[in-house]
């Protein structure tokens, strides 16, 4: 049998437990509402919100890594054809870079710089070398235009 003090303690605990369960359920519901059905099937066996979040994070980070590696490869192999639209090409490169940044792996400034210079058609070569020489003589770095 429980003593009077123990009974009070247990009532307190039940109250705490109820609040905790409610908060837990809100967090779970919030996660469930923002993931896809297939993602939900993977995590519905987990019991606590913390376990659910960790499972989701592990799964998504793995996938995200794969996607970003793939995109990075595509960014590096992106090339502008001779007589192609250079503006459209630059826009594609910037979009890819932004997507990579959204995945947490943006190419560094230097990488992107060399990707851009390398992706231009061969007819730009004299122009590019002239710009590079000028910038090195003037000790100025090439920056994208500020809007």
């Amino acid at each position: 049998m429980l003593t009077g003090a123990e009974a009070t303690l247990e009532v307190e605990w039940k109250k705490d437990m109820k609040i905790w369960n409610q908060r837990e359920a809100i967090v779970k519901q919030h996660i469930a509402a923002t993931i896809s059905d297939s993602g939900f099937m993977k995590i519905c066996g987990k019991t606590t919100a913390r376990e659910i979040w960790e499972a989701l994070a592990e799964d998504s980070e793995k996938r995200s890594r794969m996607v970003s590696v793939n995109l990075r490869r595509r960014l590096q192999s992106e090339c502008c054809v001779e007589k192609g639209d250079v503006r459209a090409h630059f826009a594609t490169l910037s979009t890819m870079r932004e997507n990579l940044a959204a995945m947490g792996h943006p190419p560094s400034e230097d990488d992107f710089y060399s990707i851009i210079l390398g992706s231009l058609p061969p007819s730009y070569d004299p122009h590019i070398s002239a710009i590079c020489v000028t910038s090195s003589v003037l000790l100025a770095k090439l920056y994208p235009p500020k809007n």
Partner: protein
Amino acid sequence: MLYIHSSPRLHLLLALVTLLPVYKLLTSFLNDQFVIRSLFTFLHSKGYGPGTPQLNLQPHLKSFRSQLFTFLSTMSTSIKLSEDFMRIPKVNDDGENWVIYKARFIWSIDARGYVDHIDGSSLAPVNPVTRTDVA
């Protein structure tokens, strides 16, 4: 019947008696504000009445609004018991927007004060009473 057919005055009386409920019904129907207003709107949209037709006023604006609505309803979700800060993007299956989703999720859950359930700092309270007599 023969008698009715023979008297024109009775004819008139009969016609009045039959038409009165119909008339009453019609007037009560037309007195209804909503009916009149919708009738006006309809006529107005057809080009009758003063001013330009209202329904064709800004079709591009309307489509933009519906587009915005579709965008919001597909891209985000909101939980009823909270406000706008619960509205965050859905995470894609391929993990494309995971980094953004993660940050925004933690922000929004932090805004509600539940972040301790995610980072593991809040554990379920342990029953202080150890029961030995429970069968």
